[in-house]
């Protein structure tokens, strides 16, 4: 039966998660790129939001959440024609319409995260094509497996708010795309620093508060679970920020703001899959682990793999999401955690399996998609467009006109 209180919270949570993509993530990324590309990343976030929303409406919601297939949903609910005004989503007390909306905001932010991988050098049309295909062939299946009644859910895989479905898929795909696309012209020696660190901070702060909708909303209800999830999410973010700051301070003598908020995002990504299962102590452990491991991961991708995952989607989101998913069973037993249905190691193996399968699927399918897109249209901006900046080249506008 419908419950107005659960609905009230889920309406709010939907607002928060959409806000994470528009403007928070856009703002976060916009501050990290150069001034001449600020509009391109903002536009990519909006465009992906629009594209995903429309595809979701046409068939991807159905593909993800209809039917009882082990591997994929069915197309029985095209154009959302089955969503009755007063339908309640099964297993919850919220309207079907709210579930459609809430899940849509997740489907929006996931490909939007990948913007960070190809920032400053991909053609706008390629961005759209890639994102659309990726939603259909990577995100929707993965979400179905774990949240839509698919085989990983049946196997007992736990992913409270998307460590695997969201952050791992995005992170792995980021690597694949960045690799195929090649680095920015200046990578690695002459890359310019973030053009507006203040914008990075504001974007990250909005991501942080929006993430409460993401994680605590994943309880799909208002109550004790949502409450503990919010608290854990916050503590993990704080612990990860402190960790990143401590590392930078020790290493360079000066902690940077961009580093601090990167740590926050890493902590948030790490706690995400576990957020509904841990208590405060577990959250802090997750945060510290996320901060430290993602710090290293970012360096490894950049210097070890020499891949220009421009805004560190793999290092921050992919690694954080995987890490949180894997250590979930170990931290859930700490005070305030939820009761686990399975022994720790059994659960750990299931988690490992889910991470592996979804990671592999993301890598392989994303590779095929990128190749397909690069065959359909040029992936890469022309050298001129890249030098002049994508803002003017693809959108005919400039982010700033200070003179008046």
């Amino acid at each position, binding site marked *: 039966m419908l419950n107005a209180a659960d609905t009230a919270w889920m309406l709010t949570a939907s607002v928060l998660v959409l806000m994470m993509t528009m403007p928070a993530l856009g703002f976060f990324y916009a501050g990290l790129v150069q001034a001449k590309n600020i509009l391109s990343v903002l536009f990519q976030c909006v465009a992906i939001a629009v594209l995903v929303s429309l595809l979701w409406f046409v068939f991807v919601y159905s593909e993800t959440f209809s039917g009882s297939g082990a591997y994929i949903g069915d197309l029985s609910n095209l154009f959302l024609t089955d969503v009755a005004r007063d339908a309640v989503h099964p297993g919850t007390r919220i309207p079907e319409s709210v579930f459609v909306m809430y899940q849509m905001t997740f489907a929006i932010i996931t490909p939007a995260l990948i913007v960070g991988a190809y920032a400053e050098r991909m053609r706008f049309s390629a961005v759209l094509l890639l994102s659309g295909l990726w939603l259909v062939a990577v995100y929707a299946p993965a979400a179905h497996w774990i949240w839509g009644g698919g085989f990983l859910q049946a196997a007992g895989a736990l992913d409270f708010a998307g460590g695997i479905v969201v952050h791992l898929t995005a992170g792995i795909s980021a690597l694949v795309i960045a690799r195929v696309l090649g680095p920015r012209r200046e990578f690695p020696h002459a890359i310019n*620093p973030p053009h507006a660190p203040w914008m990075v901070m504001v974007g990250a702060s909005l991501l942080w508060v929006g993430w409460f909708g993401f994680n605590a909303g994943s309880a799909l209800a208002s109550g004790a679970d949502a409450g503990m999830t919010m608290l854990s999410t916050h503590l993990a973010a704080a612990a990860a920020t402190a960790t990143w700051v401590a590392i930078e301070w020790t290493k360079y003598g000066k902690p*940077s703001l961009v*580093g601090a908020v990167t740590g926050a995002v890493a902590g948030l990504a790490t706690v995400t899959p576990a957020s509904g299962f841990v208590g405060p102590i577990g959250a802090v452990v997750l945060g510290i682990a996320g901060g430290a491991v993602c710090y290293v991961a970012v360096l490894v991708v*950049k*210097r070890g793999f020499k891949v220009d995952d421009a805004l560190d989607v793999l*290092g921050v989101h992919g690694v954080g999401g995987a890490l949180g998913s894997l250590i979930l069973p170990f931290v859930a037993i700490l005070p305030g955690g939820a009761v686990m249905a399975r022994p720790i190691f059994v659960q750990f193996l299931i988690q490992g399996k889910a991470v592996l399968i979804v990671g592999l699927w993301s890598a392989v399918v994303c590779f095929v998609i990128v190749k397909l897109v690069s065959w359909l249209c040029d992936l890469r901006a022309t050298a001129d467009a890249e030098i002049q900046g994508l803002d003017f080249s693809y959108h005919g506008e400039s982010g700033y006109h200070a003179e008046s």
Partner: protein
Amino acid sequence: MKLVIAVIQTHRLDSVREALTSIGIGGMTVTEARGYGRQKGQKEIYRGAEYTISFIPKLRIEIAVPDERADDAVAAIRQGALTGKIGDGKIFVTELTGAMRVRTGETGNDAL
């Protein structure tokens, strides 16, 4: 008349201005500039990557002075701008063949 052009560290503007006004030179025009030279660019570190800013923020000052004040102006600027570190900047002097104050139409030294 001479046009004295100085490129200085951004945080020395106030002391340069004081040095100039103390010798009675009370007009100047400043633009924000970026300088390239011996001074190694400042390093910024983000997410473990070091970024070297090869063009360093500077201020460019332009002061028109009567011929006989040029040397004093140069000396005052140097005094105000000096910190002794690489990147302190340069002072250039060039000849002005004319000057006019827009408001009054005065020309020559009177315009300054």
